[in-house]
């Protein structure tokens, strides 16, 4: 086989995977928007998401399996996520448990909860028997553009609606209190804001979105299992950070709030795009999590190192040494 043929088949494979990559990227993008709310706006490293995404998935799946309409199941997934966020919020504000630890505790507890909801380690659902909103089976290119295009379109639509709602919410008086709390809680309290309350509300909202994304993900992949959320926070962070780097590069000064949310979702797509490429190149799916950790490390480290390269002690030492040549000895004497 010649090189051209290989390239062509690789490209076809990549093209076939594209609708799936975009759909899945956007579903995780919703979770990433949830992470954006805590990590960026509230400045709270919330690890609840590894559990709450599974809770959303389990709740939605079990409800649909029991004949509940899909949209109600999704609202329930959102609500279940909210509840998880509430627990973390109360652990933190009412019981004084540090944020990271509060999230970890909820996450661990949710593992049992999710297992109990599912009744077993994993459960599947067939798109042939239930009217699922999304399904990976429908994103096959062979199904024709009308089918997979609409599937991707639904994901885009959901993200667009959520972005609009969040844009509105963070522009309200209540949204302002959350932003102020995340930025400077001393100032917020001095302005009469109950920072504990706004912390809890932000965690509730964030995990609600994460739960919703879990509910969509379970339908998309056709199953929910107790491990589906493991490492979710890292994927979420990857999407947030990729979106931020990309957004500020493209939009510059016009990188406003709506753009930030949209780019966070786009960050999810890019994450899956890169994952698709490295897997096609030959990365075993065993290394998925290792890969996501490395992506986050790179995106966090690059801005830091670039900045450090501009002003480093090493450089300062070198500059100082060149200035001091031939001076030091005589002055010491």
């Amino acid at each position: 086989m010649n090189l051209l043929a290989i390239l062509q088949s690789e490209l076809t494979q990549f093209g076939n995977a594209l609708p799936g990559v975009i759909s899945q990227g956007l579903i995780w993008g919703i979770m990433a928007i949830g992470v954006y709310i805590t990590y960026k706006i509230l400045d709270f490293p919330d690890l609840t998401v590894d559990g709450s995404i599974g809770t959303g998935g389990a709740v939605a799946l079990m409800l649909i399996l029991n004949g509940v309409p899909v949209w109600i199941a999704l609202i329930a997934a959102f609500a279940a996520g909210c509840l998880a966020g509430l627990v973390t919020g109360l652990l933190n504000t009412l019981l004084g448990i540090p944020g990271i630890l509060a999230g970890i505790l909820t996450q661990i507890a949710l593992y049992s909860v999710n297992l109990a909801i599912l009744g077993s380690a994993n459960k599947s659902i067939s798109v042939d028997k239930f009217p699922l909103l999304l399904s990976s089976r429908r994103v096959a290119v062979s199904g024709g553009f009308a089918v997979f295009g609409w599937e991707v379109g639904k994901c885009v639509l959901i993200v667009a609606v959520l972005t609009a709602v969040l844009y509105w919410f963070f522009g309200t008086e209540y949204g302002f209190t959350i932003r102020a709390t995340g930025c400077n809680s001393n100032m917020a309290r001095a302005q009469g804001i109950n920072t504990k309350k706004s912390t809890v509300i932000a965690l509730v909202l964030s995990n609600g979105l994460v739960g919703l994304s879990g509910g969509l993900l379970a339908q998309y992949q056709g199953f929910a299992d107790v491990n589906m959320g493991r490492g979710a926070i890292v994927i979420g962070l990857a999407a947030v950070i990729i979106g931020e780097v990309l957004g500020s590069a493209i939009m510059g000064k016009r990188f406003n709030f709506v753009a930030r949310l949209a780019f966070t979702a786009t960050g999810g797509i890019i994450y899956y795009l890169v994952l698709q490429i490295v897997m096609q190149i030959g990365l075993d799916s065993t290394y998925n999590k290792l890969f996501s950790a490395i992506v986050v490390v790179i995106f966090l480290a690059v801005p830091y190192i670039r900045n450090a390269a501009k002003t480093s002690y090493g450089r300062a030492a070198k500059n100082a040494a060149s200035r001091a040549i031939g001076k030091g000895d005589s002055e010491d004497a």
Partner: protein
Amino acid sequence: MLELIDVKKTFNAGTINEKKALNGVSIKLDEGDFVTIIGGNGAGKSTTLNAVAGVWPIDSGAIIINGKNVAGLPEHKRAAFIGRVFQDPMTGTAATMEIQENLALAKRRGNPRGLSWGIKRAEREEYHELLKMLDLGLEDRMTSKVGLLSGGQRQALTLLMATLKKPDILLLDEHTAALDPKTAAKVLELSDKIIEENHLTAMMVTHNMSAAIKHGNRLIMMNGGHIIYDVKGEEKKNLTVDMLLEKFEEASGMALSNDRMLLSKHNDM
């Protein structure tokens, strides 16, 4: 207006770090009083203001604002009555929010906040006019992030925010200490102007003795968690820095060996 009755506060009680910061502070301010507070490091000046603001609960005593005992109210609830400017210019504003958004937050101090817009169109015009008064050019940068402002600009903005909704008490804790002398003088002048125009009741901590004499209608000196000296009216106007130093030695039984205060003795402001 504001009355403190035998307010006591001990930090880290029962540990080796135990510190009696307020040992029964009592003072009654009348409406429109502008009190300057001086005293050595650790005298309890900031602690007094923090007690009023409700940063933490006091151990005993009463804090009465407008006839209401507020000692049981948490900080964010007490904020309805109190405007504050802090020593660190970073503390009083939200750096990642716009100038106008910071003002909008301050405008709603003490009001319930709901799901209507965080800032309304009509407000923008109001803020534009107010910022003009500061004469810092901020009225043309209303959508800039506060993090881009200098320390002096931030303090001026914080001052505006603290008084945007008229507070019953304005608390200024060394709010010019982090600024260069010229900016400090400007912010101080602005404070005077705002307090006078709005007939505010205010407490201002300062390490600058001449500023403490020059500004306000009343002066108190603190030491060891007590108020050791309290003057007002004509008597205050006739004070000199040397008289204050003398008073301090007399009342506390020791020399005021505080570098910052001695330095500021020669620093007219």
